């Protein structure tokens, strides 16, 4: 029950919910990237990763590029997979901050949990998109001319009012609508 329709944004992507999710991830990517570039120092401080400001800003650039890729490309699938890989990199980098006597270990743990959550979302989105991508959907069949009335609906509407509803199929008299006070009694058809 999935088709290319006028509302379809891209071939093979009738599923607008996943499209919306992908767009949301793209916007998130850019916003997060800007934060990493604008405030690498305070991020590094919060995570006990002093001296790695350059790396954080570099990751910010990566996030922005991926975000733009998601929003601007015809098919965001490879870019979302790119995000999944980037998430892996982020997690690995954060894991290094867990070593030694980092006093901000608690913060690093929280950051890793947050990244893991986003990773799950990225992975789900990438997987759904990949499943859709290889097979373009067929266009919806057009049945708007399948009236069933060879001479048009105008001719057919009420054409069977000559039909005598058998007595055993009639609504009980008392329940007939007020608009038809004297519904004619019809005899039982000869069967």
């Amino acid at each position: 029950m999935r088709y290319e329709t006028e509302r379809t944004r891209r071939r093979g992507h009738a599923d607008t919910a996943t499209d919306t999710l992908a767009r949301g991830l793209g916007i998130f990517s850019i916003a997060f990237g800007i934060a990493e570039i604008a405030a690498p120092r305070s991020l590094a401080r919060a995570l006990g990763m002093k001296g790695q400001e350059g790396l954080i800003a570099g990751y910010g650039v990566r996030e922005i590029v991926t975000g733009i890729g998601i929003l601007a490309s015809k098919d965001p699938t490879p870019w979302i997979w790119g995000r999944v890989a980037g998430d892996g990199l982020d997690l690995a980098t954060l894991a290094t901050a867990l070593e030694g006597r980092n006093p901000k270990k608690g913060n690093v743990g929280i950051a890793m949990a947050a990244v893991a959550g986003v990773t799950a979302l990225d992975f789900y989105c990438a997987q759904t998109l990949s499943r859709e991508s290889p097979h373009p959907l067929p266009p919806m069949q057009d049945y708007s001319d399948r009236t069933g009335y060879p001479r048009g609906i105008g001719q057919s509407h009420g054409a069977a009012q000559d039909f005598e509803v058998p007595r055993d199929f009639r609504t009980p008299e008392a329940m007939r609508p007020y608009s038809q006070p004297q519904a004619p009694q019809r005899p039982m058809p000869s069967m």
Partner: protein
Amino acid sequence: MKALVWHGTTDIRCDSVPDPQIEHPRDAIIKVTSCAICGSDLHLYNHFMPGMKSGDIMGHETMGEVVEVGAESKGKLKVGDRVVIPFTIICGECDQCKRGNFSVCERTNRNGHIAAKAFGHTTAGLFGYTHLTGGYPGGQAEYLRVPFADATHIKVPNSLSDEQLLFLSDIFPTGWQAAVQCDIEPTDTVAIWGAGPVGQMAIRSAILLGAKQVIVIDRVPERLDMAKAGGAITINLDEESVIERLNELTNGKGPEKCIDAVGMEAHATATIDSMYDRVKQATMMETDRPHVLREMAYVCRPAGTLSVPGVYGGLLDKIPFGAIMNKGLTIRTGQTHVNRWTDDLLRRIEEGQIDPSFVITHTVPLDQGPDMYKIFRDKQDGCIKVVLKP
């Protein structure tokens, strides 16, 4: 011969089986020229209806040419006659047949005692539809044995095509009887749940019978399109509230007449009652999912009618009988008394009031039948009605 044979849940195959023979002097054998897959067959395919055995031949919408006639049917049929075979096997002589209640014929169900255990009394024998209704081999095959053939047939003229005539076997009279059960007045709004083949025929029948307004409810876009082409206002249950829209379209009073053309496998999106049904069905405490019946009872105008062609098999739960009783609703239901309506309907096809072939979306050779069951069930590829050519 080749035939579509049931082997188990979602397992239907095109097998080679022995040709049917005359077994009784009232039998006839027909060479099948066209047959169709019905929504009722899906209840067997999905194994919602009990009583199938591996090896049973499917199919109850069949037409063809008479190739052999038993001695006692000779006066009524001859070799070469072109016939549509109704899905209900009828004797034409019992009390029920005489009254035109063909689908509850008292004599054609050779497993009547089993049916009586399940339902209290026997109902008619049916082609290709479980051992509860006689275990008769069906017509999705190259040849079909027709029991009680002197009564169980509809003679059709050569001037019309198979496609125009085939649905006299079931879905056209079924949609028609659904509408007739509503005893439609020119002031009536008729609401129809399900835009499958039966729903489509019910729409056209309600229009022919002069309903003021016909509304159809489904969730498959191309089925809704076809419904609109037939003159119905459409409600997509995935996108709108069915109850609200129906009340809106009837000045808050609800439709006078409601038709359930969905049956026991109703789909419901995340409503409390649908989850309840799934749990009960999974634990075998309920056999059917009566979501549509509940919705109809609730929204129907007081003193209105519920017409139920949709097939149910067993026990239903949480039916709002309070609404039915207090609003004084009439319930009309039943398998279709096909032959009761077919003379009249054949005339309407001949006169061009309706051409039932509009509903066909797929025509394939018989051996592609097994694939088509899946495509039809999953509503892929715009599939609404499949015709098979042996």
